[in-house]
């Protein structure tokens, strides 16, 4: 009986640990790093869903490289677009809407960079 209790407790601990891992938030790279961005070249992530929401967008690139990050809704519209030189980081005031991440070299120069975002996990089972 004591052994059975021990095994059951262990099973609960294992399931809890695995559940925690399954719900883990994730940093997801959707371009690069080290990707070459030609003038006008952009990259995008997949759309988020009930199980995970994008909460920010990052474009790691050199200090002399101009580019943008934006969040694209299901109609293709852009929101919270940030253009700048250097490493761009942009957050959202509210992330409970369906969107994908996008980064783009909207300059006339080619450069190397990487784009990634933070996806917050939600229980969706």
């Amino acid at each position, binding site marked *: 009986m*004591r052994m059975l209790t*021990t095994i059951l*407790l*262990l099973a609960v*601990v*294992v399931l*809890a*640990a*695995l559940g*925690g*891992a399954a719900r*883990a*938030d*994730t*940093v*997801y*790279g*959707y371009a*690069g*790093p*080290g990707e070459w961005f030609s003038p006008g070249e952009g990259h995008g992530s997949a759309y988020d869903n009930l199980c995970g929401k994008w*909460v*920010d967008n*990052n474009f*790691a690139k*050199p*200090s*002399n490289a*101009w580019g*943008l990050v*934006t969040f694209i809704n299901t109609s293709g*519209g*852009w*929101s*919270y*677009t*940030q*253009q*700048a*030189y*250097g*490493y*761009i*980081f*942009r*957050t*959202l*005031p509210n992330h409970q809407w369906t969107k994908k991440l996008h980064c*783009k070299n*909207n*300059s006339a120069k080619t450069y190397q960079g*990487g*784009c*990634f*975002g*933070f996806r*917050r996990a939600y229980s969706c089972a």
Partner: protein
Amino acid sequence: MRLRKRGEVKRPTLFMAMATLIVGLGLAVSYESRESPSTKAAPRPAAARVSGSRSAAASPELAIETKRQLGVFDLGKGRRIRISTADTVDGMACLIEEADDGTGSSCFDNGFFALRKTEFLVTSQGGPEQFTALRVVGVAAPSIRAVTLVKTDGTAVQLQLNSERAFVYESSSSDLEARIYPTGLRLYGGSRKLAETVTFPPAG
């Protein structure tokens, strides 16, 4: 008191050890999942994270003690924007704007003004063809006395620099409807001498 034989492990102790091992394994898997995306390798950002922030693995890791406020600007209708600078723990210099519509920043390996005499961000809503809101937020180098913003229709607007040489420009509704957007900054030094012109793409 029960005496144990040499080498005998108490059962509760064994249980605790196993539980600790499993929880540790679970946490390790969880951490690995944060750091490594499922299909692509996450880039290692030059700037990392803000300790304790909600997006701990992605956002720039600022050295909080270096944060310096450059000004709070009133955009009208109760909207405000806060401009500040801060260094990351790995030595990048960041220009930060904080507003009701989120936080944005740009960070530079070699500090401010190494490549141009102003650092700035362009933030917009709508697009990519037509914007419904657009603002330019920035700071000029110490040697700069005046900044003029140039628009796509060729007109220019003198920007108000505060005591920290920070500035904010917001496009008017009429300009946005006419698709007239900012596309450059003219920077003037002493005696209104043009020191530099920085251009940028007017649209996405």
